């Protein structure tokens, strides 16, 4: 019953909600932001102690093997409180890259450290203003069974503090190559980029960086599928975070509608606002179903994962955009102040929409996958 959570999943969700609202409310994110930090390392350690960093790591590598759905549920709750952490890039995408990849050596070295939260990973895929792995130009040249990497990646999330990059590149035959690159390797330089959401983004240069055979996660004919699957998992995680933010912004807005008075009345009595809120609620319910289905597709690596992921991201983008816009409009001027969390939700939604593809990208992809 993929659209209904199992008891274990329900319990994880409750734990995540409880912990995050106690230990990591939006105010904690404000502290990280105001201190100019990327994330709260102490909080991350606590999250790791709860086992969250080990959720998608197989038991054989000291993980919990709980499944991607679990990470999705945590991402939803983390989205609600704007938690800045390497959870998605390391625990979901990073772990999945190693699990899907062909290097047993890399798995043995890194998965146990990913499980404990010590090693942090970032996915380096985009090279342009818009996400589309089709336009990958980073070159992987074969050297001694491994590769030499040259290219530039942009807007790499959690890229300034990651210990490793998972790099999407292409070989001379234009085939995808997926590589594990030590962030401190010779030839790697990174520069921080500041976006409106005050999260960590890096532009990363790879200049003649050597990658040993043991750090080749995928190449040849298998690489395309692995790269696509990995990006689909990252896409679904971003959709989960968007869903969490949308829920939180919506609930706070409905609350505000029951408090704010104008013309001598609670503004929530106005039908013009009621209908827009009701419409947003309906959209959120549809999104919830699509998100749960996409998580199931990612967890089981279902054949229709690509479609489910594109559906989830397109709908999450649109719904979160609708709701954060409505949240500001319904709050009025106060919604534009830094003091209120609504504006922070708005800003995070804007960057997450770009992450792993805008709705137009995913609609086009969905159509192509549908065969028209």
């Amino acid at each position, binding site marked *: 019953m993929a*659209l209904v959570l199992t008891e274990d999943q329900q319990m994880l969700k409750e734990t995540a909600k409880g912990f995050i609202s106690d230990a990591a409310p939006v105010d904690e994110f404000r502290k990280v932001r105001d201190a100019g930090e990327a994330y709260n390392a102490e909080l991350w350690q606590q999250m790791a102690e709860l086992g969250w960093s080990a959720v998608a790591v197989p038991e054989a590598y000291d993980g919990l093997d709980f499944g991607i759905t679990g990470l999705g549920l945590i991402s939803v709750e983390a989205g609600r409180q704007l938690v800045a952490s390497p959870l998605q890039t390391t625990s979901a995408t990073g772990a999945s890259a190693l699990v899907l990849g062909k290097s047993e050596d890399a798995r043995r070295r890194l998965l146990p450290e990913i499980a404990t939260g010590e090693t942090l990973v970032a996915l380096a895929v985009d090279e342009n203003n818009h996400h589309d792995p089709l336009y990958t130009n980073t070159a992987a040249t074969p050297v001694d069974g491994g590769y030499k990497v040259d290219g530039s990646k942009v807007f790499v999330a959690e890229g300034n503090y990651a210990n490793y990059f998972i790099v999407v590149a292409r070989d001379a035959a234009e085939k995808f190559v997926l590589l594990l690159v030590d962030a401190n390797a010779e030839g790697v330089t990174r520069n921080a980029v500041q976006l409106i959401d005050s999260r960590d983004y890096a532009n990363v240069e790879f200049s003649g960086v050597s990658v040993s055979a043991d750090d080749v996660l995928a190449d040849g004919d298998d690489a395309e599928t692995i790269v696509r699957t990995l990006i689909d998992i990252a896409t679904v995680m971003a959709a989960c975070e968007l869903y969490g933010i949308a829920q939180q912004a919506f609930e706070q807005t409905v609350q505000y509608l029951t408090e704010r008075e104008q013309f001598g009345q609670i503004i929530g009595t106005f039908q013009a606002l009621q209908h827009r809120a009701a419409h947003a609620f309906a959209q959120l319910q*549809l999104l919830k179903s699509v998100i749960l289905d996409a998580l199931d597709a990612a967890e089981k690596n279902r054949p229709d994962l690509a479609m489910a992921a594109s559906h989830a991201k397109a709908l999450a983008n649109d719904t979160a955009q609708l709701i954060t816009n409505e949240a500001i409009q319904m709050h009025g001027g106060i919604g534009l102040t830094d003091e209120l969390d609504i504006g922070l939700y708005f800003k995070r939604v804007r960057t997450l929409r770009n992450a792993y593809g805008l709705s*137009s990208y995913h609609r086009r992809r969905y159509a192509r996958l549908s065969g028209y």
Partner: protein
Amino acid sequence: MSDLEQFRSEARQWLEANCPDSMRTLGRREDMVAPGRKQAFPSDDAKIWFERMRDKGWTCPDFPTEYGGGGLDVAQTKVLKEEMFKLRCRAPLTDIGIAMLGPALLEFGNEAQKAEHIPKIVRGEIRWCQGYSEPGAGSDLASLQCRAEDKGDHYLVNGTKIWTSFATEADWIFCLVRTDPDVPKHDGISFLLIDMETPGITVSPIQLISGDSEFCQVFFEDVKVPAGNLVYGVNKGWTVAKGLLKHERKMIAELSQDFIGGKLSLRQAAAEYLGNNAEGKLKEPGLRAAITNHEMNMRAIGLTAHRSHLEGLAGQVDPRIPMIMKYVSTTEFQAKDELLAELLGYRGLGWKDDYFDEEELKASRSLMFNKSLTIAGGTNEVQLNIIAKRALNLPSH
């Protein structure tokens, strides 16, 4: 094998053995089998299929067996529907008695009423119509004026009902009537069952923009209705009405979700009427995006209906989901009509004659007739009011 899987396997075998081949194709509107005294079957196979399903109680699979129903539980009913869908079995009988009045009578009717009416619904012997709206009572349904005066052993009914679907074909009508004009409007309404053959009833069909005239106005002039035909209690009709409306909205939502593309799914229509470009993609990128948007919305609605069902089975019912389903389903269904009309161009606007094929004419009729989906059974605006009040707890004036 679980009991449910065992049931699935048996149901499938039975359907395969008993559903005639011609009943395993997509039906058109005129292929639907309606019940009642005037019942006529569109084909011999339709009659055979109906009779087999009727005898098994599967015209109303979830009604109790004591009234002739199939006695299936919620999960089994869903399984049966799924298996029928997979084999493309047509509905053996389509009726608001099955979808609306039956479930309401099972909930609110007394034993005599259930014993008299439910078996006839299951067996397709009586066709029902619905007397709710009045010329002065649309969205504000509770302001209805059709009067039923208590005369001891009977009620004397005077007034009119409008937008009654298929009143010309129906045998009985279930009505909301005013039994007390001196109390707040919701508190003076009763639910009455009336035989359409009773003297004093006249029916007048209404011609719609689509050319259809299934909607009628029904007039009552000194109509005597036995006192035993009042359901649930005097002045308690609004409770029954609300219960029944839930079934009606569910029915409309499900009808909208059962998008049967026929020959013309949107993408087929797009390829056929607009053509592809050199890359094999639809020529018009804007319409391509609109089709994708629609397909995604339909998928989201389908997943949500399925989620709601699974939540029910898991004992985690979210009562807010049914509140949104009519709104989202009917809105999306109309979006499909509009899109299809756009894809077909002038061919999607045909009125009649041989220049247009059946599918094209169906598209233009649907474009017009389906505007009723967001009005009937509670307008979208009423649905949004309900969500705002009951799901979001927003205050009223």
